[in-house]
């Protein structure tokens, strides 16, 4: 059992997979010699010099190379430095990687992972702070994962690398300094599994990535006020563990989602729609989404903190909705 930061867990998980399978390769901008601009890949190039490469500022070429390598026997992991930059290579992600197996009647396999630093809280402004996991969730053919702890970084990254299909792996840049216990030895988790972190009888709060610790903090506060909440970490948007989620919601009759992405068409809307259709009679009140408003993110700290859901906003929203 070692304590690692979320940042260190990335390098730890990548090293585990590069070690485990010689067909794993890793490429990105400033990832090799410099160990990444978030220092999340330090030491990998020294250990695996032929399989860890620095690339030019050419995101389309980076993901295209990953795709072509995946269809010819390698298991590439590509880094897109900030998830906002997925927009410059979105054609490769959404039109090529996501569709090629289907279009070819299953002839082509694409076992690849796209790692990227997602989310806000670092005062980087509208072009370096987005949560775009819903962009990926909306595209058939992509698996979508977003860990909230160092342990999940290692386990879900391993699961993603070993998965036979393309996985978008959203690391949350505000979580990189977060410390957590990581068991020794190889860890391989499973995609498509949500985690119930806390069980309560009054409502179910579902969160992802950096919103998970906030949901937990809110639950603690709510408990003090006599509201007992279940908290679920979604972890994987595609595949989605609807079994765990629907059970957790049915048990309490009330759903609250905590989303960092802007308001419209996020995973929360999808989950609410599923829950409504499938647990209608078990619901005691309308599901409520707690999201960032539908605006680009502002840079100033006070503004960014006001925009992104906080534990306080969760507490306030839940309390109001439950009329407590």
């Amino acid at each position, binding site marked *: 059992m070692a304590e690692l930061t979320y940042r260190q867990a990335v390098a730890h998980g990548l090293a585990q997979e590069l070690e485990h399978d010689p067909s794993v390769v890793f490429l990105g901008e400033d990832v090799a010699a410099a160990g990444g601009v978030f220092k999340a890949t330090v030491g990998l190039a020294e250990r695996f010099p032929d399989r860890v490469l620095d690339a030019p500022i050419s995101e389309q070429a980076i993901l295209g190379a990953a795709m*072509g390598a995946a269809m010819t026997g*390698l298991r590439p992991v590509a880094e897109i430095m900030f998830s906002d930059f997925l927009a410059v290579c979105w054609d490769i992600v959404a039109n090529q990687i996501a569709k090629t197996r289907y*279009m*070819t009647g299953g002839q082509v396999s694409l076992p690849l992972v796209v790692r990227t630093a997602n989310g806000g809280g670092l005062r980087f402004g509208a072009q370096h702070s987005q949560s775009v996991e819903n962009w990926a969730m909306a595209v058939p053919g992509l698996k979508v994962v977003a860990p909230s702890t160092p342990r999940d970084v290692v386990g879900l990254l391993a699961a993603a690398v070993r998965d036979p299909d393309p996985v978008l792996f959203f690391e949350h840049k505000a979580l990189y300094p977060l410390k957590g216990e990581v068991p020794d030895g190889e860890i391989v988790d499973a995609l498509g599994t949500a985690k119930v972190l806390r069980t309560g009888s009054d409502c179910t709060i579902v969160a992802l990535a950096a919103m998970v610790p906030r949901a937990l903090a809110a639950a603690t506060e709510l408990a003090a006020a006599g509201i007992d909440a279940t908290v679920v970490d979604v972890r994987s948007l595609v595949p989605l563990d609807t079994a765990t989620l629907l059970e957790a919601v049915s048990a309490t009759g009330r759903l609250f989602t905590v989303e960092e992405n802007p308001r419209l068409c996020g995973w929360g809307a999808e989950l609410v729609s599923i829950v409504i259709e499938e647990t209608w009679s078990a619901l005691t009140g309308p599901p409520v989404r707690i999201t960032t408003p539908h605006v680009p993110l502002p840079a100033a700290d006070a503004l960014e903190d006001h925009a992104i859901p906080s534990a306080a906003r969760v507490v306030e929203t839940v309390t109001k909705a439950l009329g407590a």
Partner: protein
Amino acid sequence: MPTPTELGLPPVPEFAAPLDDELALRLYTLMQRLRRFEKRAYDLFMQNLVKGTSHLSLGQEAIAAAFGIAMRPGDWTFATYRGHAHTLARGAPMDAAMAELLGRANGLLAGKGGSMHLTSAEHGAMGSYAIVGAHLTIANGAAWSARLRGTDQVAVCFFGDGTTNIGAFHEALNLAAVWRLPVVFVCENNLWMEYTPIGSVTAVPRPAADRASAYGLEPVLADGNDVAALYEVAAQALDRARSGGGPSLIEAVTYRHGGHSRADPAKYRSAEEVAAWMDRDPVETYRSHLMKAGVAVAALEEIEAAAQREVDAATQAAKDGPAPSLDQVDRDVWADGTSRWRN
């Protein structure tokens, strides 16, 4: 629009490259098979048996044929929506290709891809990509994989003149050069995008060749209708890639006989322009060349008849093919064969 002569091309291809007879006839045979397949594809589109769209290589067959013969099994082809010829040239079965155009269950892609996405991975035809630019970057990945896995496979990527103006072209060429990848980029300059002359939207007269130096590469220009010259160019570029010499960028100047796609009558091109290029038909001119070189007409006619028999049989097999079963809609999103996104 410059004439062939203004483009520095002879009125008819020279076929100066020395090829032994056996090779020459293999090239001719393949061109005949591609030509007749494409003509049939056009007829079937006009009969509304090919639904959606189709983009033909009529007039450009020499390029697919020369590379198809010069490449080795194990090498990879990355093609565009105009990819029938390139896929067949690698040995993909003609009946399955035709059946895919007709959207049948016995199609190469089980009817799920259609004309624009012909793929036969087992033959090294790694896909036909219908959004301009992307597949140049994907070809790099295959080449990278060959080097890392220590094989001597080469990736060959075909694309058009218009594609040289999109960002992915630039990114792919730079990365291929920096990593010295075993990849050959073949620009089929047919002088037109869809309906727009390439010269009107490109900053240089030679859309590919005039860009080579931007990637530290030698410009390579070829008569895209001279199958013999193309075979030599292909062999050299493939050798260079296989022997660690890095990527090549080849511009083969050619012309499409018909419209861009579907039933496009290509009215935007002048009759003189089309006529000048019809005189440079890669198939007919090579036929005359072979006859002059002493190949018996009977031999050529047998090749042509055999090609026609193959196309007719493929057409029948395609027409006889069943419609895909509806559960195909939900198959093959994932490697487990399903499209399951939830439990």
